[in-house]
């Protein structure tokens, strides 16, 4: 049972504070802030306790969303709840930031009132909430198509991509001020996160893909949406893959609103999306990648005569050429030695498919010995592959029934991120 919920800015300002059970005082906010800022690096910050009060928090958008409890509550419930709260604030206020929270505090209090009663979670669904919410959201800035500063896939928080069709994915779902025309958009994002470990001998040691299909819906009412996946889509480890372009995943699970009656035979997901963002399907695939991993690295590490460490890296992208970027000009690169993390940072802003890049790093290392060579490595890569899924999952079609009077724009976007792409030396 949640005792209090509060939201703090990164500087510790109180943005939202609501007490549900009268078990703890407002001092808890300051106690929390002191604890979280004074935490030593090796301590897990997720669950903290002080004098019988337990703090569970998440950090999103530079804000601390915190819940406290005095009972033996479930941290899963609380973390899931806080994540939903953050997502709902994003849905209702357009973005999650100190500014948007300050501007919409009355709305957030109202939401909290409906979401939690006496610390029991009541609902986190926009469909139900919209029946109760009276306050209107205030958008941080009037929406403009030309304002590209906050371009980004909502599913992908870290990296930016210019392939996003518009900035419209980050605006409040229920704003009634203007924009009536563009209101009826639907976004379907297929986001995959790729974890790869390639051994020193070039052997693929571990591959792991976590994927999700997210829907963000701006339609005020939508009776049913049908999402068609690849027809050859199969689930489970045991099934044999034929020669065709079958798409296989190990495990998948679905949002509870998804109806699967046509899934088994036609690979169609049926859902009546509520307004806002929801993860319709999550899936994962381990060890059995349908194609080669997108990047191969050929490293050489040696010591030259003047005891300098030579690291020679040859990087090749194994994706088909056109799948990557628009231009094939030589990519701009930067490299930098970061002494604090004992790493060399090599940045390549754009990497065409099928291309190959080489780099030679010469490092002066005091007291370099033969044994030091053993310490070099591994290479970790982070990248984003737009318009590409490693599992090969595709959205065949996206249909709305009944057919809307004025056709609404539907966007389907694919992206693969590196979650942890490691090549050992």
């Amino acid at each position: 049972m949640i005792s209090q919920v509060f939201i703090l800015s990164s500087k510790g300002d109180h943005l939202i504070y609501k007490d549900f059970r009268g078990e703890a005082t407002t001092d808890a906010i300051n106690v929390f802030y002191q604890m979280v800022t004074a935490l030593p690096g090796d301590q897990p910050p997720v669950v903290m306790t002080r004098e019988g009060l337990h703090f569970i928090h998440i950090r999103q958008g530079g804000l601390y969303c915190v819940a406290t409890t005095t009972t033996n509550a479930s941290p899963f419930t609380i973390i899931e709840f806080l994540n939903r709260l953050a997502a709902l604030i994003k849905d209702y206020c357009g973005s999650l930031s100190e500014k948007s929270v300050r501007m919409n505090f009355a709305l957030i209090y109202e939401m909290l009132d409906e979401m939690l009663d006496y610390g029991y979670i009541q609902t986190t669904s926009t469909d139900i909430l919209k029946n109760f919410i009276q306050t209107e959201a205030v958008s941080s800035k009037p929406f403009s198509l030309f304002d590209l500063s906050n371009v980004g896939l909502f599913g992908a928080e870290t990296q930016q991509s210019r392939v996003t069709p518009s900035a419209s994915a980050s605006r409040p779902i229920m704003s009634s001020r203007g924009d009536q025309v563009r209101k009826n958009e639907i976004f379907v994002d297929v986001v995959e996160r790729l974890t790869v470990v390639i051994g020193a001998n070039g052997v693929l040691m571990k591959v792991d893909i976590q994927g999700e299909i997210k829907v963000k819906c701006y339609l005020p009412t939508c009776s049913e949406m049908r999402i068609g996946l690849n027809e050859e889509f199969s689930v489970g480890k045991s099934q044999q893959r034929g020669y065709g372009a079958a798409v296989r995943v190990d495990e998948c699970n679905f949002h509870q609103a998804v109806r699967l009656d046509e899934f088994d035979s036609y690979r169609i997901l049926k859902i009546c999306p509520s307004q806002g963002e929801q993860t319709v399907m999550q899936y994962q695939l381990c060890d059995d990648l349908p194609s080669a991993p997108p990047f191969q690295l050929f490293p050489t590490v040696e010591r030259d005569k003047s005891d300098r460490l030579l690291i020679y890296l040859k990087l090749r992208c194994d994706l088909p050429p056109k799948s990557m970027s628009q231009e094939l000009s030589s990519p701009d690169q930067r490299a930098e030695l970061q002494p604090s993390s004992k790493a060399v940072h090599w940045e390549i802003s754009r990497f065409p498919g099928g291309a190959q890049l080489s780099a030679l790093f010469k490092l002066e290392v005091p007291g370099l010995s033969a044994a030091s060579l053993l310490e070099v490595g591994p290479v970790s890569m982070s990248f984003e592959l737009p318009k590409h899924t490693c599992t090969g999952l595709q959205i065949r079609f996206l249909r709305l029934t009944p057919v809307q009077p004025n056709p609404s724009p539907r966007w389907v976007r694919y992206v693969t991120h590196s979650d942890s792409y490691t090549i050992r030396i």
Partner: protein
Amino acid sequence: MTDSKYFTTTKKGEIFELKAELNSDKKEKKKEAVKKVIASMTVGKDVSALFPDVVNCMQTDNLELKKLVYLYLMNYAKSQPDMAIMAVNTFVKDCEDPNPLIRALAVRTMGCIRVDKITEYLCEPLRKCLKDEDPYVRKTAAVCVAKLHDINAQLVEDQGFLDTLKDLISDSNPMVVANAVAALSEIAESHPNSNLLDLNPQTINKLLTALNECTEWGQIFILDCLANYMPRDDRESQSICERVTPRLSHANSAVVLSAVKVLMKFMEMLPKDLDYYGTLLKKLAPPLVTLLSAEPELQYVALRNINLIVQKRPEILKHEMKVFFVKYNDPIYVKLEKLDIMIRLASQANIAQVLAELKEYATEVDVDFVRKAVRAIGRCAIKVEQSAERCVSTLLDLIQTKVNYVVQEAIVVIKDIFRKYPNKYESVIATLCENLDSLDEPEARAAMIWIVGEYAERIDNADELLESFLEGFHDESTQVQLQLLTAIVKLFLKKPTETQELVQQVLSLATQDSDNPDLRDRGYIYWRLLSTDPVAAKEVVLAEKPLISEETDLIEPTLLEELICHIGTLASVYHKPPSAFVEGSRGVQHKRLPPRSGSGESTESPEVGQPGGTGPEATPAVIPSQSDLLGDLLNLDLGPPASGSVPAPTSGMQMGAVDLLGSGLDTLMGDDSEPLGGDIGGSPAMGAGFAGAPAVMPASLNAPVGGGLGDLFDLGSSMGMTTGAYVAPKSVWLPAMKAKGLEISGTFSRRAGVIQMELSLTNKAMSIMTDFAIQFNRNSFGLAPAGPLQVLTPLSPNQTIEVSLPLNNVGPVMKMEPLNNLQVAVKNNIDVFYFSCQYPISILFVEDGKMERQVFLATWKDITGENEAQFQIKDCHINSDAASNKLQSSNMFTIAKRIVDGQDMLYQSMKLSNGIWVLAELRLQAGSPNYTLSLKCRAPEVSQYVFQYYETVLKN
């Protein structure tokens, strides 16, 4: 215009301005004003002075404004109880409003106003709302009962709200059911015996039906409630499991974990041979794996839970090792948890993979993580015996990197590996010694010193090494000082001639120049021990150590069971029972897993808990902490004794041992001994230490006490490692000149019913020896090696290795002359060598050789005189009780004792491993050093060898 302007800083007279605005006629203005008030409230400003003005705004049709006013009320009603009464009328009126939103809002807010006076006004509206036609109002009212109960429990009972609440469990709306369950569960926790949540098959059925219909959050309430139910039999348990299993694929991790909790608990009741049990095990793995793709916060919480599940049922995740491999971008706290689980899952099947990973981790940048990875390699070596050799070589590779903290961690774990596998990997000691100078952490220094002390006889310059540490003795930490003291004493006992000065130096440093009581006392004990009885000192200090246990940090089984019942809660993250961190009565009842029923499986499943068990005082550290002084002194771990590897000493021996030290101290300390002796005798550490020590043999300590340190030099190598029974010192069986440089000396012993051939192999040649093997010729009692000769590391020149070769007696039989002769062939990479040796007959005496009195009498009479042999044992100085004790430890049992004409008559029996009984009568004449032994046996040829053994034991 946005709301953020309300947060602008306080101006003078702001309260006054707000007051005016609140009383404005315009609704818009009022609303803006209330918003400003709430904004001030949030940042912590006191706006309670505006209470009456805000309450005045309450009567409005505007729902948005009403909600804001209620928000204010909830916050300030407690501090202004009298004013709060003003609001009651409006609340009561609102509870009758045609709009269900307003009715629910009113009843919800009223419950949150924690003022006693309001509660009496709350009852009537609440009663109506509990029966409201709108489910939204009913579910709000259900929660309100819990709120009211918290303020005034008696009132809730008197008004009969609890019964109404129970009725709501059967409500048609799943949301109402979920809230009613949640409210009842909470109320029930404060009345542990009330049986409020009367869970029976009917209500369970209703809950399971509601489970499929309600929201994810409602599902959590219901699943948590189900977890408290105790099914009547395994069939019911299975049917509940079947209906809960679909929740495992829910996208909300909290639902998944609550389902896992129910399943883990009810699974306990399912018979293990049931097909469904296996199916269920398989279904549990994927959802747990899926949790690891969530945000780091959830991952961390999930890993803490998986850690528990893996300890309880390792089979669930045994094939999923790879998902616990660390990603480079995991936060450190996730990495450390994953590492822990990797070790728990490590087994022979996946150890190669795990080691390869750990080796990679050991070269990462993060120091904490690297340290833990190195330690993990050591834990793998201890856990999976087959991997030990690989682990050791991996650790040596890591030591080659010369990275300071890696070297230090590696040395700490290598010490543990030495403990676990004695006499196997000592060849690496030289490499370790090279890194002596780089050690700057106390734990690593202490570990290194321990190694030097323990293997002093194999390190040529052990005295120099230890002396170098001694220079800065007073700057070392206590841990290092204590280890250094013990190590030097060990060194002295092993190489007495060269190190007398050193030991005197350390003893005086410890006793005279130190003000640390632990160090000083230990110094004194060693000093007195050495000066009083060096033989005893040797047996105490160099006693054989029990093996260390395989798994460290295991959670105690009863705690684990309780934590399994709390999966998915804070308890599972802290790994502490809820009573340890939840105040008051809530949730303090200890939960237990249900007993297993069904197909006669009464014992706990073997994978649960450790054999030997982990006592509450178990210390995960392998070097005992300083407080465990006594244990440490004896160089024993106070942790759980290693699983089954240590023969339990008989109680007689234990008593003897305790007594020994007690009385020894008495005489040592003279008059001052009282408190110290008493302390030691009474401390649990003492008991634990001795319980784990089979080594101290009381009888041998009664040997004549020589005078002081000088006497020690006579010892030479004459004292073998004693275990319970008398063991002859090692004698040279194969001289080096006969075997191209290989010298073998050895002796035989019987430990815990297993015959051991104790061998010392010394390489006196110039080249390395490898590939040792051993074979016996046929012999009288069919002795044969029970396993290969374990010499895994090459024997380098001038190195000695100690090997214990367990023997059995199922080999081919051929009568030898003499009867106890054994012909042995030893092979190494150079040649094959033959030698013969003779074993004492006592190693064949089995543990159940104690005859019944009546049988003894009958047998004695039955065996004729020609099968009787009489012997004289001369020059024996030992009384009959001591003799009886001594013989007993060699499985020679005293059946009866009689005193006839001032003579002590001992009647004894023993049984050979091939079933031959030997009966003995030992006659002791008080005052005379000559004993008479009569032996009766149906196979008289053994009598001579039995007599020989009597003579050896009684004279030693």
